[in-house]
């Protein structure tokens, strides 16, 4: 019985991490919906006013490559997801970038 229980111990960290991420994000989601805070995370402080899409683009994408002249709206979401991983974009920057590239 003890051996059987110990087999499930490995799942505990997975559950904790998943639950932690879920609750952390739901808290932010609730804040955004109630209009108390416009930033997408508790650590994105109140002084962080909204940037323009061009600003976000120049500050992040242009660090590595020239801006592409055209991006098909069909692929924009996928490309920005890829760049969010590669360039470690915040969700707020991702949202502004999507609005800028595919309004």
């Amino acid at each position, binding site marked *: 019985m003890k051996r059987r229980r110990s*087999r499930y111990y490995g*799942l505990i960290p997975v*559950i904790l991490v998943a639950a932690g991420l879920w609750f952390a994000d739901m808290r932010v*989601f609730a804040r955004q919906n109630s209009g108390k805070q416009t930033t997408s995370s508790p650590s994105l402080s109140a002084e962080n006013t909204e940037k323009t899409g061009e600003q976000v683009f120049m500050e992040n994408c242009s660090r590595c490559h020239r801006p592409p002249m055209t991006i098909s709206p069909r692929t924009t*979401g996928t490309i920005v997801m890829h760049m*969010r991983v590669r360039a470690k974009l*915040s969700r707020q920057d991702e949202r502004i970038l999507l609005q800028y590239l*595919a309004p």
Partner: protein
Amino acid sequence: MKIPLLAACILLCTAQLGAQDAETDSNHAGYVPVLSGGIGYISNVSGGTSTLQPAIDPVLLLPLGRHVLGESRAEFVGIFQRRNGNGDYTGQVFSAVDYAQIDWLANTHVIVVAGKYITPFGLYSERLVPIWIATFQNVPLTYSIGTRTSGAGVGGQLRGVVLQTNKYSVQYAAYYSAHSNAYQWEAARTTGFDASVYFPAHRIEAGISYQRFLDPKQINSEAVYLSWQPPKIPLDTKAEYDHSYYGRGYWIQTTYTLSQVPVANSFFKRMELAGRLEQVFPLNGGGHGVPGIDTQRAGGALNYYLKDNLRIVSSYQRQFSSAKDVNVWNIGFTYRFVWPLWPGGK
């Protein structure tokens, strides 16, 4: 018992994704699978030896919802040299899977990466290697420090933004790689992190990387790097210092786009001039990609963008070492493509 627990986990994650989707649904961005990447053809002359290097690096992007992304990059590179120095060109094509990973974009602070990933070490490996991005078509002499030869790990990685304000943002990546001998999934047991701070007003980024190589000999590798794109000048300066058991060295590269030339601006704004200086000093005999003797390289590049995704690249570098001084020439073209693999999107 195990299956319900796993099901509960998946349910939690799915609920999380649903909540996030509702949050970001105010644009017209499509999320179709994408085949992207670069194609290049480079003619290289190094120390009088001519090599033709056609290359295709396709990147496959498969979004699963808006917060899970499967992505992979393969590399097909041909190395063709003249038989006996002046005969026909002969050679072979090498293929490799650079990375094949699943990303869960959980929130701003945490992106979970699992699979084979590019080692986040220094400026070059993750960001400047793609042929359509690289200003110089050869990697710096210190490139193998922190990435060894494969430049990839197999395991897990967490990355994201620690905090972000209008004045600065702090980003991180931390990883653990297991040992793997599986075909196309070769990796060594390593752990490490990369952290950087970016000041958007000045467009300055400063970062550090650390890696503990655990397999078979335990060694440390460290890097510090700086990237600067002054807002009012079309200049891009990047520099990195690397150190490991096998050697130490640095590279500094500056690229200037001639968009401020007042005459024939439509011609000159497509042109960029670059210079790179690099030095490497082996320690403990060097090896594992680090030259065995002190080596310096200096040179310039001239690239011209015919279109925003098609450019002619050229560079000349002089390499100095106690064994031999050689000239390194590169000329060719690179092309970046982005193709949707599925109709639709909004």
